[in-house]
């Protein structure tokens, strides 16, 4: 699609179990080479394979779709492997405890669903800029 115009180091990993979300984010987030995953196992495999700089991470993933355990486990696993990775936690849960916990665990930002493509684009760009600053 658009990956031909994008530099290799602008890789973005989208972790979400909703196929529609993944598909539309691929079309909507411009300027990134987008990789997707729908589970913890695939997310970690994709991360190890592509080493993306920014990750958008949904907290409610199978098998704990209605909880947050899988999302936080992935966050830990990714930051363990790439401590500088900018992880934007995207969640439908508005509970402050999840936002606080995400930030305390090292997430770059917490984005509350529903996703508006323009605003998410800004958050992801900020995440990328933040990464570049320290490099």
């Amino acid at each position, binding site marked *: *699609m658009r990956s031909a115009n994008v530099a290799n180091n602008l890789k973005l990993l989208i972790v979400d179990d*909703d*196929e*529609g*979300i993944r*598909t*539309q*984010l*691929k*079309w*909507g987030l411009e300027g990134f080479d987008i990789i997707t995953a729908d*589970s*913890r*196992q695939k997310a*970690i*495999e994709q991360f190890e394979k592509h080493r993306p700089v920014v990750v958008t991470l949904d907290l*409610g993933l*199978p*098998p*704990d779709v*209605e*909880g*947050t*355990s899988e999302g*936080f*486990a*992935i966050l*830990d*696993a990714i930051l*363990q*492997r790439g401590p500088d990775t900018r992880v934007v936690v995207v969640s*439908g*849960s508005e509970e402050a405890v999840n936002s606080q*916990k995400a930030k305390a665990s090292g997430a770059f930002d917490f984005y509350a*669903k*529903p*996703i*508006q*493509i*323009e605003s998410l684009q800004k958050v992801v760009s900020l995440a990328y800029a933040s990464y570049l600053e320290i490099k």
Partner: protein
Amino acid sequence: MYVEAISFGVSTILFIILGLIMLTGRQDNLPKTMLAIASLVSAAWSGTVTYQAVFGGLLSFALLLELFRSLAWLAFLLVMLRTAYNSTDQVNKNFKITFVGLGIFIVGLMMLALYRVSGGSFFEFIAGNDVLVGHLLISIGGIVIVEQLYRNTSEDQRWALKYLWIAVGAMFAYDFYLYSDAFLFQRIDNELWNARGFIHGMVVPLIGVAIKREMQWTLGEETIDIFLSRRIVFHTTTLLASGIYLIFIGFGGYYVREMGGGWGVVAQSTFLFAALLVLAVLFFSMKIRARIKVMIDKHFFHYKYDYREEWLRIIRTLSLQDTDKGLHIGAIRALAQIIDSPGGLLVMERDNGYFESDERWNFERINVREPVNTTLHRFLAEHQFVISLDEYNEDPDMYTRLGPLDIPEWLSSNKDAWLVVPLVLQEHLMGYIVLSRSASHERYFNWEDSDLLKTAGRQAASHLAQYESAQALVSAKRFEEVNRLSAFIVHDIKNMVGQLSMVVSNAAKHKKNPMFIDDAIITVENSVNKMNKLLVRLRGEGEVEKDVAFSLCELLEESVSACSATGTLPIPVLHCRAEQIMITADKDRMSANIAHIIQNAQDATNNTDSITVRLRKQNSYAVIEIADTGEGMDEKFIHDKLFQPFESTKGTMGIGVFQVREYVHKLGGQLDVESEEGVGTIFRLHIPLSSSTQSANNAHIVNLNKHEKRKRGE
């Protein structure tokens, strides 16, 4: 004549034998001596009657001996009853008075009998009947004492003593029958009299059985107070009163017949039937019963209530009610029965800030709606007093000197309303019960009634609160379900809104790209699927679990592999002892449960520890063991917190283990936890095997995943 001689001759011989047996052995206790005397006097009397039957004469002597025999038996029974009580001055005094009274009564009766035999005509109107009434009273007295003795005999002593009570009771019962008949027909029936010797003789073997069973000569132990309940006194009193009533009715019946001329027999029958009818009505009259109870309470006992019995009855009445309405009416009844109140009204505090009428029992329908802060409610809450409306009307100062109190119009104008009993729970007035007037206690309401009602009111309040808490818990669970459902709906709607809004915003740039159109259609289709799922859930059909039979070993391989892929250490190692262990369950849910416990184990361990997952078959169950060598848990945590939803040491919602256990239970299995601090933890899931299970017996390690191999340097 010969029948009489044989009958009483038999009884003479048997009583002599009994008396002699009683005189053998140690004579160290009074009851035994008294039984010996009673037996020998009975033998003397029977012998005299036998002699009289054969040779004639000795009538006066026989009459005197019969009364003396009655005195001996009653004395024996009283001596036995005496052993049931602790030796206190009051008890000793009461028994002495009873003995003296009994002696005077029987000696008086002897003199009267002699006078009648000698042809004395004083008070001709009742000639002969007075002695018969004396005999009847003796028999009733004997039956009443036997009843008392039976009730005071402990369970372990009844095995032997019941034969003694049956024997003596039967003897007095037959005498009652004989003399009632004599009293009614004004002559002693020959057949009944002749049988008397045999009857009395028949009871001797029963007494022999009691002696052979090594009966105790005492009913109570020295240090134990034998409990004389109000119920026993009540029954004894009614029995005694009924007996006396029947004697007088028989007496009356006789004179109605004598003076009724041609209508005599008809008049007597009508009179007797009417009298029995009156007795039945009196017997079943609540009012009469209540008055007898009050009379007994007043004159026989220090305290008005038998608190143990009252308390058991209150608890029984409250506990029997299992429905909302039943419990509320039960609370009214529990309080009403204490003071024989015929009905009541329950008024409860509502969430709207008012006290409103709740249930009623034999009470007129009244719609009560009073604000919480009335003087009545404040008075009940602060002082927790039972308010007697009669007392309040007569002397309001009795109450108002404690604090302001105005009785609302609906209560003061109700003529049935008598008492207001507060229902207080933890110093909070949750309601009150208005009780109707009691026939017996109306003029006899004192501190004892008030205290018992107040305490019972607290107990009733506690029961009502417990029921309301249970109801609130059910509501809370329903709300929790609704909340969960709402959260799920909101989550899905957010996703759908996000998807569709992204389709719209992306379409502005890519609408001419056929690939985007394909993706957009897939996205919309995805949203439609989600909406359909939502509809299913909103209709209350919920998610259908797809229970299928599958190989548990394969599932564990997948779960272990998925957990290993995350890279979290330690890597779990799987040992399947038999590959073909099949269970029937929802595969995804089972997998999630296994993953959750492995993840818990990983959280509780450090990188150098180990996690082992084992699968084996045990009877008709598959047993999955997930063991770690981590920090372990203490017993208190396992007992109090591990299986509690929303309890966690990890800062998460902590619903996992609770859910795992719930699901395992749903499958008909069990989840056990074994843990030791500093040693590790083992979670054991027992899951019923599906019928298609075929197990292989050879144990082998099925899977060592790639991380583990790498770790081992393979």
